[in-house]
């Protein structure tokens, strides 16, 4: 029998962390060392149910473990959410082009996250933190629907205390228990202290959020090559063969999932 490029390796669930009522972080221990670059994605198999693509939310510097922060929305994820410590899943990858850290050196970095879209960005933040001297400053603006939907509740304040790091969380709909900012994430991008003419912006969230954040960033003076978007489509093979994730002349799995807006701006209906 020959090598099967679509065959996952086993990974044991070591811990399940409940982030919100619908989102859990799974800490996995793969049966072999698993390397990935921040922003690359993997295919996760729930045995007998199927596969789905996710971008790890953990520090790529940690080789023996892998964390995935996953919302319960579909067939694979709803089964996954019933799994517990000790259960076994499959993983294969990593696939695609991640965040180009080299291009961020010496610049202000504005990171804009929406909802569970903070998951890949957490991996990016860990990477940035471990080489923080290379960057001018890191500004995170995170939007969540309600305060109950915020992920990494304990980490966010810790990040905000770090040197050269600024964090602001905003919720779309406020309530009496939420002391922070209320408003869409697009309303907290104006006075960030970031030099918009030279900064890099990294956006990850639901398509509608990415659309309006991109428009806002262009408005603020960002150039299309400086806006990095995570375009996660329906991806099955991860290798540019199965044909599901075409965006114009690209495949999201092979040419992305991280694209600059420059690459995508002339393609129709990219936000659909």
């Amino acid at each position: 029998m020959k090598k099967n490029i679509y065959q996952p390796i086993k990974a044991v669930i070591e811990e399940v962390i409940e982030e919100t009522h619908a989102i859990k972080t799974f800490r996995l221990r793969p049966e072999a060392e698993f390397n990935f670059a921040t922003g690359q994605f993997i295919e996760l198999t729930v045995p007998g149910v199927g596969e789905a693509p996710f971008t790890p939310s953990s520090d790529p510097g940690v080789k023996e473990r892998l964390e995935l922060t996953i919302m319960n929305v579909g067939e694979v994820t709803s089964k996954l959410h019933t799994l517990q410590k000790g259960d076994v899943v499959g993983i294969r990858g990593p696939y695609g082009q991640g965040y180009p850290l080299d291009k961020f050196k010496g610049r202000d970095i504005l990171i804009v996250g929406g909802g569970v879209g903070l998951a890949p960005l957490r991996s990016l933040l860990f990477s940035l933190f471990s080489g923080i001297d290379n960057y001018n400053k890191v500004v995170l603006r995170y939007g969540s629907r309600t305060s109950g939907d915020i992920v990494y509740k304990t980490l966010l304040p810790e990040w905000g205390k770090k040197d050269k790091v600024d964090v602001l969380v905003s919720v779309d709909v406020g309530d009496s228990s939420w002391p922070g900012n209320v408003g869409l994430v697009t309303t907290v991008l104006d006075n960030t202290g970031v030099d918009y003419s030279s900064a890099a912006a990294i956006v990850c969230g639901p398509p509608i959020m990415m659309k309006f954040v991109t428009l806002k960033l262009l408005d603020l003076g960002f150039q299309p090559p400086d806006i990095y978007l995570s375009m996660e489509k329906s991806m099955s093979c991860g290798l540019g063969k199965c044909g599901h994730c075409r965006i114009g002349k690209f495949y999201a799995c092979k040419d992305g999932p991280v694209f600059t807006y420059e690459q995508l701006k002339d393609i129709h209906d990219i936000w659909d």
Partner: protein
Amino acid sequence: METYFLKNDDLLKFYERIEQEYDLYVPVKAESALKYEYEGKAKLPAADYFLKKFSQVNKEEIVFNEYRTVEPTRAFLTHYKEDIGNYKERPQALCGIKNCDIFSLKVQDFVFLEGKEVDPLYKARRDNTLLISGDCPHFKEVCFCRAFDINPYPAEGFDFNLSPLNNGYLLDVASQKAKMIALSLKGILMPATLGQLSGRAAKRESVNRRMDEHLAQHKIPKKEVLQEIVLSGYNSGVWQDEMRTCVECNGCVFMCDTCHCFLLSEDSPSGNARRLRLWDGCLLKNFTKVAGGANPLRLRYMRLRNRYLKKFDFFIANLGYQACCGCGRCIEVCPGKIDIRRILRKLYEEKYIPAN
């Protein structure tokens, strides 16, 4: 490349020799439901051909197919549903392959053999496949290879090629594999004469001419403008108009020889789940649906447009030519009579022929 003459009476010996080393598939005539009614003048053949296993047919059933078979050749290289974790490949020989199919195999090769990873199952099968192609002395109403400068006879990409001539065939021997087989068939192969070669050239000219006459009425745009017209036609009403009769059977995709999309899946709810690969298709409703319900191709016209963008923009940008060989299988299979020739023509006319 060496060319020999093989008498009609000896064709079976040729097949039997191939059969010693390969699972051989040969063309047989078949009654099929795929009758495309044509309203024009030309009297065109309506028979259909399938490939069947040589070992399982009555030898008198075997024919020389005058044009491509019903099934796409890619069906012999990736199966509709297969276990990709556990396979054993026996060498196979495919007879009756036409130049449109050979063109399509270039697209399949690009998908499965190029890029960061080679698909090992496809590669094993491709390497183990002997292609015995043939000229097309005729064509079907739906055939339009010449519209995209693909000839109804191959010049390369085969191991053997058969060109019917008088009471036999000219046999081109192209590959090393083919040469080895030809060596063992010396008794029945005679070097082709100049007269035979020019006879073949004249037959080829004749089918070209007849096909060009037939295609003139369809006004199919040249391959050089395909990318431009599908991009400029993004917001055209053509997609909506043409989609009205689509019943979402996905037949156009499954019969297409250049389509390649697939879905990885598992087939058992517990234990040793097998990893399956299934043909998928972009005309199916959930092709691009993501968990949570969002679906970039949620409407039928979007899916039709997507298919054309993939074939005529994506592939031209990434491979250098279109993912369409002009075999017409999609036209023939469509219960809604959606015709790729008509869609391309309309897109072209919308761009280049101003409405008055």
